[in-house]
């Protein structure tokens, strides 16, 4: 039963390669650079000129963020964007590419974060602990994701979604109740390795006017890991495995009839997605130096992920980038604009409340509904469509 949204999800068009054919390039080294670039993005570049430029601009902005946007708040926003790109892209693997609707994604995010948080809070602070915590989080995620993946075959879409909601809810409850392990509602605060601490200085003198301290290093760690994970996901969706996933989304029975075990693929994609989310969670913990049920396990976070993946465009991975930026920036900066409008309308009773800064979710929700109705392919999907 192909839905509007299903039909709207695009597979990368063949002509999307932006590099010209070798014949037009006289220089062999330029050809090699082109080939190398293509290899990096797994032959799946954003696509259109506008998208390519946009992505490059975003990449540059994130790469030089500490220098372009100095200050802890801006750096925090940039970190959040990087982490969410991974969180949302990994969700897109399930939703956009395989057609699985799960509400348990934040659970894996939380597990990754708690893995690092618990170990850093309870034992010695060091990179070994961080590695161990990350691995532990990933391991738990793998086990849970396998269970959920196996469930998904036996249950219809809606039934499955409801069960994932219940599972996520249970995780939230456990995290909030198990004070001894997770710090309960208050969560865990902990120290991070010395290099990441704000007091640490990589260079004695400021570089380009910015002091390269622990915050900056934490940011670059986040950025590097996020970029790497994103490119890995690009490779995954463009591999034979990825093609089978897309086929499953279109017509599962056919795929089964062709001899592929759909259960295995579904489970595998759930596991990969969960691992990515878990790693994103580990990064989140390091950035925040804190983790609690509200930071990583809340349902409103799950809704934000849905917002991001739909606005950006499902089944594109690049949509995760656009979506994350739109929503995170809205979260932080929309409130100011709203505040201004609200003040201007202070005489009109209801209007003033409509534009109150706390109502940024209202406007995002309206945007979301409009996009699902009129532009279901999202920003990237729409831009990728042949005109």
């Amino acid at each position, binding site marked *: 039963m192909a*839905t509007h949204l299903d039909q709207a999800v695009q597979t990368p068009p063949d002509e999307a390669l932006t590099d010209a054919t070798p014949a037009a390039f006289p220089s062999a080294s330029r050809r090699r650079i082109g080939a190398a670039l293509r290899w990096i993005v797994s032959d799946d570049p954003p696509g259109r000129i506008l998208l390519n430029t946009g992505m490059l601009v975003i990449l540059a902005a994130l790469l030089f963020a500490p220098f372009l946007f100095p200050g802890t708040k801006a750096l925090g926003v940039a970190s959040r964007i990087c982490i969410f790109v991974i969180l949302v892209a990994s969700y897109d693997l399930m939703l956009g590419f395989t057609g699985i*609707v799960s509400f348990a994604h934040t659970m894996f995010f939380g597990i990754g974060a708690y893995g690092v948080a618990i170990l850093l809070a309870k034992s010695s602070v060091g990179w070994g602990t961080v590695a161990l915590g990350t691995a532990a989080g990933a391991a738990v995620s793998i086990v849970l994701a396998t269970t959920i993946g196996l469930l998904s075959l036996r249950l219809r879409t809606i039934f499955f979604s409801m069960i994932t909601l*219940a599972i996520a*809810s249970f995780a939230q409850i456990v995290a909030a109740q198990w004070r001894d392990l997770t710090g309960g509602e208050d969560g865990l605060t902990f120290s991070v390795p010395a290099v990441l601490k704000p007091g640490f200085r990589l260079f004695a003198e400021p570089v380009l006017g910015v002091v390269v301290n622990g915050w900056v290093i934490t940011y670059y760690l986040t950025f590097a890991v996020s970029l790497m994970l994103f490119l890995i996901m690009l490779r995954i969706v463009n591999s034979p495995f990825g093609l089978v996933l897309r086929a499953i989304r279109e017509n599962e029975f056919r795929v089964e009839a062709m001899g592929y075990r759909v259960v295995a693929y579904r489970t595998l994609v759930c596991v990969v997605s969960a691992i990515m989310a878990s790693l994103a969670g580990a990064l989140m913990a390091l950035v925040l130096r804190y983790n609690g049920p509200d930071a990583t396990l809340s349902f409103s976070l799950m809704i934000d992920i*849905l917002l991001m993946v739909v606005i950006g465009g499902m089944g594109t991975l690049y949509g995760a980038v656009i979506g994350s930026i739109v929503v995170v920036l809205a979260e932080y900066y929309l409130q100011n604009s709203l505040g201004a409008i609200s003040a201007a309308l202070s005489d009109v009773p209801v209007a003033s409340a409509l534009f109150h800064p706390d109502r940024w979710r209202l406007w995002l*929700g*309206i945007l979301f509904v409009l996009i699902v*109705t009129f532009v279901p392919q999202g920003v990237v999907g729409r831009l990728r469509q042949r005109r």
Partner: protein
Amino acid sequence: MKKEWLDRLHGLAPYALTPLVVLAALPAIGVGPWLTLTVAGLTMGIMLFLVASGLTLIFGLMDVLNFAHAAFVAVGAYVAVSVLRPLAGWTSELSLTLNLAALLLALISAALASGALGLVFERVIIRQVYGAPLRQILITIGALTVIEQLIIVIWGPEAIPLPKPASLRGSVFLGSSSIETYRLVALCVGLAVAAAMHLFLTRTRLGLVVRAGVEDREMIQSLGYHIRRVFVGVFMAGTALAGMGGMMWGQYQALVDSQIGDSMTILVFIILIIGGLGSVGGCFIGAILVGLTSNYVGFLAPKLALGSNILLMALILLWQPRGLFPIAGH
């Protein structure tokens, strides 16, 4: 012969679940608190049933899962607040008649408001997404956010107290058990609504058509019934029920905030899963079970209380993977 008996037993087993739980709790808890908790559980169950039954009927007949159902619960609660404010004179009097009259007015207003919103919602939002489960989930979640935010715009972000009417505060004493008066009233009202629903479904032609439509939509159409026209009515009835549930829950908690629907959502989903998607009878049993479990476990092992219903759901799914009363085709 033996197989027939086994089949019969198997068929009756789901019905036995609730009495079993109730009886099992008695020795564990002790007669005194047991009665209080059982009434509390039944009341909570009946309120949850009102909310959940609407959702399961909508899903059963129209194959639409309305993730925005919680919004209608909230609308009902808030409309009740607005209706009861000018009626403060009636609710502060120690007269049972006046109090009940005020509550009845609030109940009906909540139902009408949620029903009306449901009509608009079905026309504008649901119509677009019949037969498309992914879009349904997405668009109804979006609508949920928007409606809840609009509630805050209209009524403000602060939680609003909703004190119980004067003659319904306090408790009734039965032996060594104390039972809140409001709970008894809520239980009666809830049962009355449930009974009305049951009569409608089983004794009227329209109810018969709805029940048949839940089982096999194509066949009911092949018999000449324009089931699509019934969709709107059922959707409105479902949202009206949610509104009623919201009003009663808000009054019960004596506090109304924009998240009132959300807190119920997970329990409602659990009830639907336990009962079997689309089955109103299953929904009833599921709701009572969830209400009882919450209260019994809340007394016996408070730490487990929140998660206990999810565990209950898991146990039932292990026994009956499609819920207690699954409907073929769902």
